[in-house]
């Protein structure tokens, strides 16, 4: 479980987050949604410890991240996996070396054991046999899956995903969502996804918080979205005329 406890963040005069309180539950896919500029990425970076809040606390179970020194934060981070919006795969390394990197750095395993773990992770994301390729030699969707494989190679307790579906076609985006959701269930991870993909909201949103202008304006789950009367959520989720029609139809049945 990760808890955002009254998080404020300002850049000079500009207040990006204005007191966010939210609990990201273990074993669930927790979504942070909101329009561009709502403060989603800043919140995610604060939760993962890449940015310090101006005020407030971030609790990893019973540990306050904001009071820890750099060494302690690094120890917590060894339980964290993260999928970046741009994948952040190391260009000069092969896929195998990318996935192996955290093990090379922190684990005292034999090369054979590491390779077996890499093969397992690649198989889990349906990418067997691409070990020797470089990131530039595979597609964007495959890069995302390699990013996921690298994120869970050390069996993390917490998984963060920043815009996992950005730049992907709808079918690949669904595959990525399903993969993240099934890995979360399998390893009982606390997964936090920053997204504005409506399909993700409706398919894997087990615990959702909607940010608007730095404030938490709605929280719930995917089942509550369709029947919401929250204006902010309505205007965000059902922004397109097509989705508005679909919603009308669903509600009329």
């Amino acid at each position: 479980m990760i808890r955002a406890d009254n998080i404020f963040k300002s850049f000079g005069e500009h207040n990006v987050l204005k007191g966010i309180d939210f609990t990201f539950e273990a074993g669930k896919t927790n979504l942070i949604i909101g329009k561009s500029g709502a403060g989603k990425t800043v919140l995610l970076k604060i939760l993962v410890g890449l940015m310090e809040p101006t005020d407030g606390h971030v609790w990893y179970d019973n540990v306050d991240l904001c009071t820890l020194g750099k060494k302690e934060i690094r120890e917590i981070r060894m339980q964290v996996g993260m999928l970046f919006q741009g994948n952040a795969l190391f260009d000069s390394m092969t896929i195998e070396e990318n996935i192996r990197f955290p093990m090379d750095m922190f684990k005292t395993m034999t090369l054979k054991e590491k390779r077996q773990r890499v093969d397992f992770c690649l198989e889990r994301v349906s990418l067997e046999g691409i070990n020797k390729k470089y990131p530039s030699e595979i597609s964007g969707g495959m890069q995302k899956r390699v990013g996921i494989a690298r994120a869970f190679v050390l069996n993390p307790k917490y998984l963060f995903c920043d815009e996992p579906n950005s730049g992907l076609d709808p079918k690949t985006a669904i595959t990525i969502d399903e993969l993240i959701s099934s890995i979360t269930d399998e390893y009982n991870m606390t997964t936090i996804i920053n997204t504005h993909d409506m399909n993700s909201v409706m398919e894997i949103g087990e615990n959702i918080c909607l940010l608007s202008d730095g404030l938490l304006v709605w929280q719930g789950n995917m089942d509550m979205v369709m029947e919401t009367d929250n204006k902010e959520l309505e205007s965000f989720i059902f922004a397109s005329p097509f989705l508005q029609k679909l919603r009308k139809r669903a509600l009329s049945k």
Partner: protein
Amino acid sequence: MFSLRFLEDFGRFLLWVPQIFKKPENWTMYYKETIRQTYDIGIGSLFIVFIISIFIGAVTAIQFSYQMAGTLIPNFYIGYIVRDMSIIASAPTITSIVLAGKVGANIASEIGGMRQKEHIDAMEIMGVNTSAYLVLPKIIGAVIAIPMLVTLAALLGSLGGYIASVPTGLFQQSDYITGLQSFFVPWNVVMMYVKAFAFALIISFVSCYQGYFVKGGSIELGEASTRAVVVSDILILIADYLLAVLLTV
């Protein structure tokens, strides 16, 4: 404005340096990275050092030969001048200024590119001390490779002087060789290595700092690379002067 920026950078640099020398998470990974960096800096710069040293030696020989024509100074002095010019000045200082452009810009853009592509964030999330892992091997690599390159530059400078003067008939081979063997002061070689070591530290620290703290996009990355070269060059010249004063007292 400039002094504020300088103070901000200097303060941040002082706070950052202790992070670089924290205990490595995995010695083997650091060792491999150090070998790679030493190779990149050393082997990667061989060609440019070769060309520059040969030509500087050649030009020094020709220019001094021209200056001394018609005087009573014996010809063998040319070899002596070329040798000491190479050891004291051109090998450590000019080579380092050139390496600041080649190696410094390379380091700044490599680390800066990693910052922009979120590679540094990705490593931080894994629990890697990126200040140490990305910077320490480069500093060690520079400190090993640059003095070697400077040694080579000193030898090639003397060779360049020979190539430009003896085969062309400017003066006799025996004169040049006599000059190379005359008035040798071993302390000059010590000075050369002290300078090379200091300049290697300047180039690596400045370039890593500029790359590590880059913000923004490709324009800012270009500016950071340029700043790495300019600041390194200025600091090399200042350090050269200070070392010259200190080591020749």
